[in-house]
């Protein structure tokens, strides 16, 4: 892997060539042969960046907080790569990727790189593509890699959860603590952030979140609940994330978390590759078994099991 010389585009990415990185991220989006080649060449350079995930319901002010986080990291002289994931239309496949717009001046800083991804439908493979895009930003040498997703689908939540530290952002309008629990948002949070804290109901939401955390079994890390009012005090979120980063550095927790994360990603990839290979050219078999289930000759579960037996024979 490292014995062969790196391809020119991989070298260009390591040199900080913006266009090469832009093109490389397109390969990650597509998950094609080019992506495989780039990842092989650059994998050894991953694992240096601090990875932060920001997720939460639409409209809670994630982009504004991301903008504040970028400012805070830049004030410390750190370079920042951002991946902003926005939903694609399930009807046309089109997407309006507006995060760049909301990030404002931060997006123009030469040591900040912003890339927008559309989710491209639920079967579009975002869960594979986005973490690899973060790997590429990491290998490209950014000190901090931020990923922002709307916490509406399981995939988007999972993508954010691949980060070292995950902030879940809520607002008084986004629903109560129970809804956040139902969406699976609370369990991935390392930091909970109640944004738009000057609005009615914010204090109540903070209290409810604290109470919900009290109900859970004692964990080695209890997510702090911070209240923010957009850019003004995004530093409160920044500090909570930094505290989590310091905690991760104790006792090899970061390494352990990353190994677990890679293990999870590996399992998902193997599952997808396996099913893709095993199902290749099996459409006729699947159609026949489905017809049997439809005409009640077999139960659906029996049809599935016998299909598997036949494929593995």
């Amino acid at each position, binding site marked *: 892997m490292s014995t062969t010389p790196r391809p020119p585009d991989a070298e260009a990415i390591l040199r900080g060539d*913006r*266009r090469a*990185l*832009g*093109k490389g*991220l*397109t390969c990650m*989006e*597509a*998950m*094609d*042969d080019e*992506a*495989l080649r780039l990842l092989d060449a650059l994998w050894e350079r991953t694992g240096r960046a601090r990875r932060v995930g920001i997720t939460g319901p639409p409209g809670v002010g994630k982009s504004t907080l991301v903008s504040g986080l970028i400012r805070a990291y830049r004030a410390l002289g750190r370079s920042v790569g951002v991946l902003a994931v926005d939903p*694609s*239309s399930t009807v*046309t*496949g*089109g*997407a*309006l*990727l*507006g995060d*760049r*717009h909301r990030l*404002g001046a931060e*997006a*123009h800083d*030469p040591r900040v*790189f*912003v*890339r*927008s991804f*559309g989710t*491209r439908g639920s079967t*579009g*493979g975002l869960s*594979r*593509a986005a973490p690899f895009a973060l790997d590429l930003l990491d290998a490209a040498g950014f000190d901090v890699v931020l990923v922002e997703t709307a916490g509406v689908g399981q995939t988007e939540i999972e993508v954010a959860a691949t980060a070292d530290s995950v902030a879940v952002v809520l607002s008084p309008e986004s629903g109560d603590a129970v809804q956040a629990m139902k969406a699976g948002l609370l369990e991935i949070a390392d930091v909970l952030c109640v944004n738009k804290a000057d609005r009615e109901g914010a204090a109540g939401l903070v209290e409810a979140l604290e109470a919900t955390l009290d109900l859970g079994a004692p964990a080695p890390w209890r997510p702090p609940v911070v209240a923010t009012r957009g850019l003004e005090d995004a530093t409160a979120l920044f500090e909570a994330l930094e505290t989590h980063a310091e905690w991760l550095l104790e006792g090899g927790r970061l390494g352990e978390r990353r190994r677990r994360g890679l293990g999870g990603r590996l399992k998902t*990839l193997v599952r*997808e*590759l396996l099913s*893709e*290979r*095993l199902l*290749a*050219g099996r459409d006729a078999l699947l159609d026949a078994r489905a017809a049997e289930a439809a005409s009640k000759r077999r139960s659906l579960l029996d049809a599935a099991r016998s299909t598997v037996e036949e494929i593995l024979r």
Partner: protein
Amino acid sequence: MSAPSPRAPLPRGPRPIRVLVAKAGLDGHDRGAKVVAQALKDAGMEVVYTGLRQTPEMIVKAASEEDVDAIGISLLSGAHMTVFPRVLELLEEGGLSHVLLTGGGVIPEKDREALLASGVGMLFGPGTPTAELIDYIKREVALRRGRSK
């Protein structure tokens, strides 16, 4: 079993056309840009919307990071004879000459022709049906993608 290759990648299908929509100049009228952004999205494109008061430098930085096929600039302030040539120049410097540069606004016919001759794409006046713009972008991007292969 007929497997394609031992390390089969997981392709995600054809890439939607990606377009950067930017509002250049100092005026604050971005309604046209927003209408266009929405229409392109509805036509199945991925639209990166950058908002108001973008300089040519900002536009080209965004275009390279987002790896777009086309840039659409809305310009009502009369600065088109400086903005479009400058963006074109920066695109060439940045190795992005494959990117289609188009746009619209209040631009006199003779300026449009001069810009077209210099390598800028078609520019559309106010009231142009969005379908016309969509067709143009689809056609041009298909040509350019074919060429760069």
